[in-house]
């Protein structure tokens, strides 16, 4: 069972819809117990980084982190990926999980923000999440802050600067783009997540 964590931010239908399409057993839940007993955890998120505060207020933060530390496959999407870093300048008072070093920052002023639309991926070899995803594949983004390229970065995109499109370390995965809205490329990535053990 895959638990999609509902901490009160935004619309989780699309993510569930994509997993349903792939035939995955999936539940959208705000119950810490249900997250604790799930085999895999998906942490979605759109909008403002302050929404991640919903995790702290609901007691979900600890159970999500425990699951991730215990080796459960974990996928953070958009803000859910940003949360894996130390924090974001968008809501400096909120601590991220700190699994990856660095903070999320705004795009340089040379480009329009938010970054909305389909951008290409420069994929690094060896990623389990991005297995069979060709470099230069297009994925859909909508975000105003970006995570730095770090050792765990498995794909980068370019928009005024190079930023982390995907990160991966053991059982922890994150994507800045929206796989549930990235057509066949996105479905392949979610399928890969379903098949990770």
């Amino acid at each position, binding site marked *: 069972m895959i638990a999609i964590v509902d901490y009160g931010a935004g619309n989780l239908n699309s993510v569930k819809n994509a997993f349903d399409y792939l035939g995955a057993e999936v539940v959208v839940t705000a119950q810490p117990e249900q997250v604790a007993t799930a085999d895999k955890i998906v942490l979605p998120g759109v909008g*403002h980084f302050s929404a991640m505060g919903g995790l702290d207020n609901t007691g979900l933060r600890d159970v999500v982190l425990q699951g991730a530390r215990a080796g459960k496959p974990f996928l953070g999407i958009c803000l859910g990926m940003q949360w894996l870093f130390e924090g974001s300048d968008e809501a400096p008072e909120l601590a991220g999980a700190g699994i990856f070093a660095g903070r999320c920052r705004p795009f340089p002023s040379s480009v329009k*923000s*938010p970054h909305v639309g389909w951008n*290409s991926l420069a994929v690094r070899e060896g990623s389990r999440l991005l297995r069979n995803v060709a470099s230069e594949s297009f994925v859909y983004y909508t975000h105003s802050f970006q995570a730095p390229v770090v050792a765990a970065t498995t794909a980068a995109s370019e928009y005024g600067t190079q930023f982390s499109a995907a990160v991966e370390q053991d059982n922890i995965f994150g994507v800045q783009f929206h796989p549930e*809205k990235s057509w*066949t490329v996105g479905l392949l990535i979610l399928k890969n997540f379903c098949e990770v053990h």
Partner: protein
Amino acid sequence: MLTKRIIACLDVDDGRVVKGVQFLNLRDAGDPAECAAAHARDGADEIVLLDITATSNKRQTMLGVVSRTARGLFIPFTVGGGIRELSDAEAVFDAGADKIAINSAAVKDSRLIGKIAARFGSQAVVVSIDARRVNGGFEVFVAGGRIPTGRDALQWAREAAACGAGEIMLTSMDRDGTKSGFDCELVQMVADAVSIPVIASGGAGSARDFIEVFQSGRADAALAASIFHFGIENIAQLKRELHAAHVPVRWPC
């Protein structure tokens, strides 16, 4: 590289697509879910479903359509038409939309933009602006283009962005339905004035029109309702032409 988006718009009346589908080779040409899926397969980057149902008592039909369309659509999906308050937006999001488009209701009370953005994020709020050339400027019209507001389109676009809109969908009423090309002057003016993406709409007649609105109009995306009505076989063909003209597009998909 960030690409320019091609958005297919389906006008829906009482649960049926009412234009832009004559050339689609579909079993049921008027079904929004099938049309949306066909456009996605053809290379559309995004789908907009616009409810043009005149009577409000048919909202339930629309929510069913949104839900059926969303289920098999793995590209961004925007729904507009008849959204007057937060609860209308909530119902449309619950049915599966990724973004909502608001027009008249936002002009009436711009706080609606912020209310929806606070709940669902700015990325989910598209403010749709219908503008017409009046006395050397561009005036905002509402109620499907029937009522002039006396407001300047550029100022309204800036205000909408400041209120928390994630994108501006800008329709030239002068060009809408004419197939004489987008109003690049209008698009460029607004695109340069706001930091959020601008979707150009109204007037698409050829691949050349799309190339122009991306290059000289500086649009971030371009939308067409009757995209199959102007001699371009389909979106795939349009994207090949854009690609050949060095406009960055998601191609091959």
